[in-house]
């Protein structure tokens, strides 16, 4: 039987986090009431004209530099014409024949090998608005809304996924006109894992340039894939399928895996793969046909007459390069030389900007809390949680949990404040290291449950607006510990009482200790711990037992 090789190319849309929209001065802040960050320009009213935002160009140039692209001295905007309610002008301003950047590359590591993936081109374009699709309930007005369609730039995507057919949509133009770049890769990827590696590497690189939040769940980073199969060794590409609606790294992998299996089955059955656009249905774990290539829209691109050529000279490019935030190397140096992390640990954190951001936030919180709240209950203990200790927890337990659940560090159910709180409990001797591990997991579950509850209450419309900062809804570890009586007993009087009672009830062991059997000490300490139901501070127990025994040292 013929062996087939998948050929995959990715189109990634990235929202740029400028203060204002691409062609007007409306704010791009999240969370405002609908249609309050709009103006005649981004509402496509008659007679208005676009003026390009300088920072959009500079952010786009950062991406081009980070991806090693050649930047064109002159590029041109074009109109992509199609009708959709979230497209106020009836066309999207994008780049078509003359993009601003071409011929870049990204090196990825996957399956133990390194591979260079070509970047064909990058375009600057504008975001569509958000539509909320309602269904007509018995009362006439639709009070339930499905989530906004995932790829606003692709007009067809809303049609898929089993429409109810009737009803209506509501359109909010607050996000309409937010700047985007579209990064088109060469068909250089050969497996879903490589696609994932490419996306993560791309995301990390863009995060370091500071041009975007790159949050797939929130749509500030979106990915479409072109995938085809060909017999191994064959040069010519097979029939291409465009895959849409993948809203997480995991769904990209799952969608591609499914699609490769599906196409393999078609080919092995002697069939031909149809050239079409397919959507990924996360719920069913399958792709579905959205439209065939024959039905494909005719976008009637032509040069945008309302804008002039975008000219970028070497001086501007140099300036943008000089203003770029520190890339991974500089951060690594800081972590090892100033924060005392091991090379290994710095490497792990430095490779993931989201993890690095989490780490930075922890370090900041810890520093801020040391003076003020740090002393709370931490009798006599220094409150010195080192960056290395934080890094240990982040790359250890937290990373393990995150991996197991497949969530990114900007979307954990616990936040930096939780980790810092937890480490303060340990540092103050109020819980043991082992208890801390359990407490972290408990905190994590509580956070997940809280998230689900919140989403259920607010409805999905609300969730779309929910900003990342509000995410951790878990109670703090200290609160959980208090509530469950889990906290370590470090009160000397209380522990002394337990010690006294244990010693008096274990005369034999006391005697054997005095007879020179040091092992008895361990037994007695164990009994005290048991009597305290594990809550007594082990170090304190140890000291008090020794003292009570008139310990020889």
């Amino acid at each position, binding site marked *: 039987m013929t062996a087939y090789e998948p050929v995959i190319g990715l189109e990634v849309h990235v929202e740029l986090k400028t203060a204002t929209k691409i062609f007007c*001065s409306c704010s791009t802040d999240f969370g405002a009431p609908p249609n309050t960050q709009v103006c005649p320009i981004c*509402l496509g009213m008659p007679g208005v004209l676009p003026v390009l*935002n300088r920072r959009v160009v500079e952010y786009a140039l950062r991406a081009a530099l980070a991806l090693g692209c050649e930047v064109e001295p002159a590029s041109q905007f074009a109109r992509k014409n199609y009708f959709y309610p979230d497209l106020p002008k009836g066309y999207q301003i994008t780049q078509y024949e003359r993009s601003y950047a071409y011929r870049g590359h990204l090196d990825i590591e996957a399956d133990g090998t390194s591979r260079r993936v070509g970047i064909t081109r990058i375009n600057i374009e504008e975001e569509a608005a958000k539509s909320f699709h309602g269904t007509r309930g018995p009362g006439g007005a639709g009070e339930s809304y499905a989530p906004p369609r995932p790829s606003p730039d692709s007009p067809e995507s809303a049609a898929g996924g089993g429409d109810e057919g009737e009803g209506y949509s509501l359109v909010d133009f607050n996000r309409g006109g937010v700047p985007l770049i579209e990064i088109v890769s060469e068909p250089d990827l050969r497996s879903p894992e490589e696609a994932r590696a490419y996306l993560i590497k791309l995301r990390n690189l863009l995060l370091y340039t500071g041009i975007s939040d790159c949050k797939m769940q929130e749509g500030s980073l979106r990915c479409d894939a072109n995938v085809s199969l060909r017999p191994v060794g064959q040069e010519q590409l097979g029939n291409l399928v465009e895959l849409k609606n993948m809203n997480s790294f995991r769904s990209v992998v799952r969608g591609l895996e499914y699609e490769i299996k599906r196409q393999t089955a078609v080919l092995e059955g002697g069939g031909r793969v149809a050239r079409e656009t397919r959507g990924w249905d996360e719920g069913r774990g399958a792709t579905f046909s959205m439209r065939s290539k024959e039905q494909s829209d005719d976008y009637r691109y032509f040069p945008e007459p309302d804008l002039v050529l975008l000219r970028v000279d070497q001086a501007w490019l140099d300036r943008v390069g000089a203003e770029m935030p520190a890339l991974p190397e500089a951060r690594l140096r800081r972590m090892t030389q100033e924060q005392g992390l091991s090379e290994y640990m710095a490497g792990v954190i430095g490779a993931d900007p989201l993890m690095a951001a989490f780490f930075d936030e922890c370090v900041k919180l810890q520093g801020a809390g040391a003076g003020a709240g740090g002393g709370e209950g931490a009798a006599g203990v220094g409150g010195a949680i080192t960056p290395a200790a934080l890094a240990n927890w982040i790359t250890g337990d937290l990373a393990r949990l995150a991996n197991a659940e497949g969530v990114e560090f900007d979307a954990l159910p616990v936040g930096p404040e939780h980790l810092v709180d937890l480490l303060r409990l340990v540092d103050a001797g109020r819980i043991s290291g082992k208890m801390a591990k359990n407490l972290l997991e408990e905190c994590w579950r509580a956070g997940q449950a809280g998230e689900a509850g919140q989403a259920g209450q607010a409805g999905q419309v609300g969730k779309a607006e929910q900003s990342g900062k509000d995410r951790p809804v878990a109670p703090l570890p200290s609160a959980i510990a208090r509530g469950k009586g889990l906290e370590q007993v470090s009160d000397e009087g209380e522990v002394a009482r337990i010690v006294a009672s244990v010693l008096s009830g274990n005369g034999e062991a006391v005697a054997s200790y005095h007879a020179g059997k040091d092992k008895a000490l361990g037994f007695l300490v164990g009994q005290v711990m048991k009597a305290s139901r594990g809550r007594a501070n082990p170090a304190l127990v140890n000291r008090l037992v020794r003292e009570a025994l008139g310990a020889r040292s």
Partner: protein
Amino acid sequence: MPAVSAAQVRHVAALARLSWDERSAPKLVGELNEILAYISKLSELDTADVPPTSHALDLRDNVLREDEPRKGLAQAEALADAPDSEAGMFRVPRVVGGQ
């Protein structure tokens, strides 16, 4: 250049989101063909080495705006002329089928 058929005109109408009315179609097809025949006069021109002009003026400088937010319209102003709205948003019939 060959004349356009009714089927082609119907396709163009769909692209432009204009209704297609079978009764008045022949007249429309006739008019379009007359106009297209006239504009096809351009095929007489040898433009092999001629660059296209998309702007009347050769604008050499970038035109850019600083990234500074400015107040736009209030929600009520944005929706003032909307044929239909609900919950602060523009209300439209739902898209049906894959267009």
